[in-house]
C-alpha cells in the first residue's frame, strides 16, 4: 500500500500546487502507515525529483523520455498506471489543474477505480479515503466515499498549505517503462505560453478584481486594477458583468460560471457581490471591497471596506503600496 502523488512539470519546473498535494499526501500516508511516493514525468525530471524528496516523499519514481517532454494524455496515463502498479498505490492524487484532472480521471477509469475530481479536502476514515467535493457550482458540499481499493482524487489548488522543504531523504527510482512515440496519437504542433509573467488566477495568493463599476471608463478602470495587482504581485480577476461587457477576456472571470479561487487576499473593486460572484471567491481568506455604494452586498462578506470611487481609491492604494513595498 502507498499514497502516490503526481508532480506535474510545466516548462521544465514543477507546478507549485502539486507540492500542496504532496504535503497533504504526507499526512494521509502517515495516518495509513504507508509510504508516500511521488511520480515525476518529463524529459528532465532531476530537479523535480530532488525537490519531491525535500518535501517529504519516501520514494520518488521517475520516467524521463523525449516522448514525455510534452504532456500527452495517452503517454502520461500509461506511465501513471505503471507507477500505481509499481508502488502498489491505493491512494492516487494529482493537483486539479487541467492536466491533473484529465490524467487522474483517465487512469481511474482505466482501473475501474472511484474518482473524486477537484476535491477541496481529504481525510482517512477506517483506512479509506474520504474526499470533500464542492458541487452544484459551489452551492452544495458532499463527502465522497470509495468502494474500490484504488482511490483517486484531484485536489483543488490552494486547498492545503505548501509543505516546508527539509533535508532530502528516501530513494529515487527510475520506472522501467518503454515509450513508443509512434504509439502516441496526439502530436503537439505548437505551444505558446500566455507570457508577460501573468499569474494564474487559481494559483494566486492575491487577486485584484474589477466589475461593472469601471463602466465610465473600462479601459482606465482595468488599467488601475492591473496596476494595483502588479505592485501586490496579484492576479487580475473580474466579475461576469465586466466580462460580458467585453472589458476583459473570459479567462479572468471569477464566480459560478468562471473560476473558483481562494487566495489569501481578494480585493473586489466596483463589484456588487452577487451570489454567483461570491460562489467563486467566498472562501478567500481576507476580502476587501471598494465600492461607492455603502449598501452593496459585497460589504456583507468583506473583512475590510472602503466606500468610495474606485477611480480614486485604486491609484491611491497603488501609490501607498509602492511606497511601502518599494
Amino acid at each position: 500500500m502507498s499514497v502516490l502523488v503526481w508532480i506535474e512539470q510545466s516548462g521544465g519546473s514543477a507546478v507549485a500546487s502539486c507540492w500542496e498535494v504532496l504535503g497533504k499526501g504526507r499526512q494521509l500516508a502517515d495516518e495509513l502507515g504507508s509510504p508516500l511516493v511521488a511520480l515525476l514525468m518529463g524529459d528532465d525530471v532531476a530537479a523535480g525529483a530532488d525537490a519531491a524528496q525535500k518535501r517529504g516523499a519516501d520514494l520518488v519514481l521517475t520516467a524521463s523520455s523525449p516522448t514525455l517532454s510534452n504532456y500527452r494524455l495517452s503517454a502520461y496515463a500509461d506511465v501513471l498506471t505503471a507507477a500505481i502498479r509499481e508502488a502498489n498505490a491505493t491512494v492516487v492524487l494529482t493537483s486539479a489543474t487541467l492536466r491533473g484532472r484529465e490524467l487522474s480521471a483517465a487512469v481511474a477509469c482505466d482501473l475501474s477505480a472511484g474518482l473524486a475530481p477537484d476535491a477541496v479536502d481529504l481525510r482517512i476514515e477506517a483506512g479509506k479515503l474520504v474526499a470533500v467535493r464542492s458541487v452544484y457550482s459551489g452551492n452544495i458540499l458532499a463527502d465522497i466515499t470509495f468502494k474500490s481499493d484504488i482511490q483517486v482524487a484531484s485536489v483543488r489548488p490552494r486547498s492545503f498549505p505548501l509543505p516546508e522543504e527539509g533535508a532530502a531523504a528516501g530513494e529515487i527510482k527510475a520506472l522501467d517503462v518503454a515509450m513508443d512515440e509512434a504509439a502516441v496519437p496526439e502530436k503537439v504542433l505548437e505551444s505558446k505560453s500566455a507570457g508577460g509573467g501573468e499569474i494564474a488566477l487559481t494559483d494566486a495568493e492575491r487577486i485584484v478584481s474589477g466589475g461593472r463599476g469601471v463602466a465610465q471608463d473600462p479601459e482606465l478602470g482595468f488599467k488601475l486594477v492591473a496596476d494595483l495587482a502588479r505592485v501586490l504581485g496579484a492576479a487580475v480577476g473580474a466579475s461576469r458583468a465586466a466580462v460580458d461587457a467585453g472589458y476583459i477576456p473570459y479567462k479572468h472571470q471569477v464566480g459560478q460560471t468562471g473560476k473558483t479561487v481562494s487566495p489569501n487576499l481578494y480585493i473586489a473593486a466596483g463589484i456588487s457581490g452577487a451570489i454567483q460572484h461570491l460562489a467563486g471567491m467566498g472562501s478567500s481568506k481576507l476580502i476587501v471591497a471598494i465600492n461607492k455604494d455603502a449598501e452593496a452586498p459585497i460589504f456583507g462578506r468583506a473583512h475590510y471596506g472602503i466606500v468610495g470611487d474606485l477611480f480614486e481609491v485604486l491609484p491611491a492604494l497603488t501609490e501607498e503600496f509602492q511606497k511601502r513595498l518599494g
Partner: protein
Amino acid sequence: MKIAVLIKQTPDTAELPKISAADASGGQVQATMVINPWDEFAAEEAIDLCDRFDGDSVAISFGPADAADALKHALAMGVNEAVLIENDADSSDSGDDWTTAALLAAAIKAQGEVDIVLTGKQSVDGNSGSVFVGVARKLGHPLLVNVLKITDVADGVITVQRGIDGGEETVSAPLPVVISVAKEINDPRYPSFMGIRKANREQIPTLSPSELGVDMNSAQTAWTNIRKPAERHTEVKIIEGASVPEKAAKLAEALIAEKVI
C-alpha cells in the same frame, strides 16, 4: 462525417443557489431543468462542423424521461438526430461518472462509425469534468480537452487549438476523437421558432442500460453527508478617513498587519 454530441440536462444555473441538501441527496432537484449551458457550445460546434465538413450530427443524453427536453433544445438548434438513454424504472441506482461514461460510450458505438464526439467542459450540477474522459477511455479514442478552436479536419486527422494552464497549444490527433469544448469556441445560437416547432414534434428514440449492456450498480463512489456550505458572516471594518490617501494608508497598514501582503 458523423458527429455525436453529449448533452446533459441540468438545473437552470440561476436556480443553483436555491438547491437544498435534500434536493441534492434525492437526485430530484426542485428547479427548472435545462440543457447544461456548457453543452450548448458543444451542440453549436457540432452543427458548425456539419456545415464545414458535410456531416451528420446526433445528440445523446443519459437521464430521466424529461431529459428529452434538453435533447429537443439541441435539435431545435439544428442537430440532426437525438437518442435518450433512459434509466430503467426499477433501478434506483444511477451509478457514478464511469457508469454514465459506459452508457454514453455504448450508445455512441450503437450509432455506427462516429468520427468526432463533442462534449461540454463540465456539468453545472456534477461539476466533474470527468465523463468525457471516461467516454474517451472506454471508446479507446484520443481525448482533446478545453478546445478553443477546431482548425481543420483533413485526411483523417483533426487539428485543434486548446487552452492549457498558462497558455495555448496546437495539437493534432487521428480520428475518431473525443473533444471537450471551451466557452471561447463559439457563440451558441438561439433555436429558431421553426426549429423549436419541428423539435417538439420529434419522437426521440430511447435506449436502456440493459439494452446497452451496462450494469447500473457498478458505482465505485458514493456521495454522503450532503450539505449546504456554511454561511459566512463577516463583520466588515469600513476604513474611515478624511481623504482618499488617508484611507488608502490605513487599509495598507491593516493588510500588512494581517500578513496577507
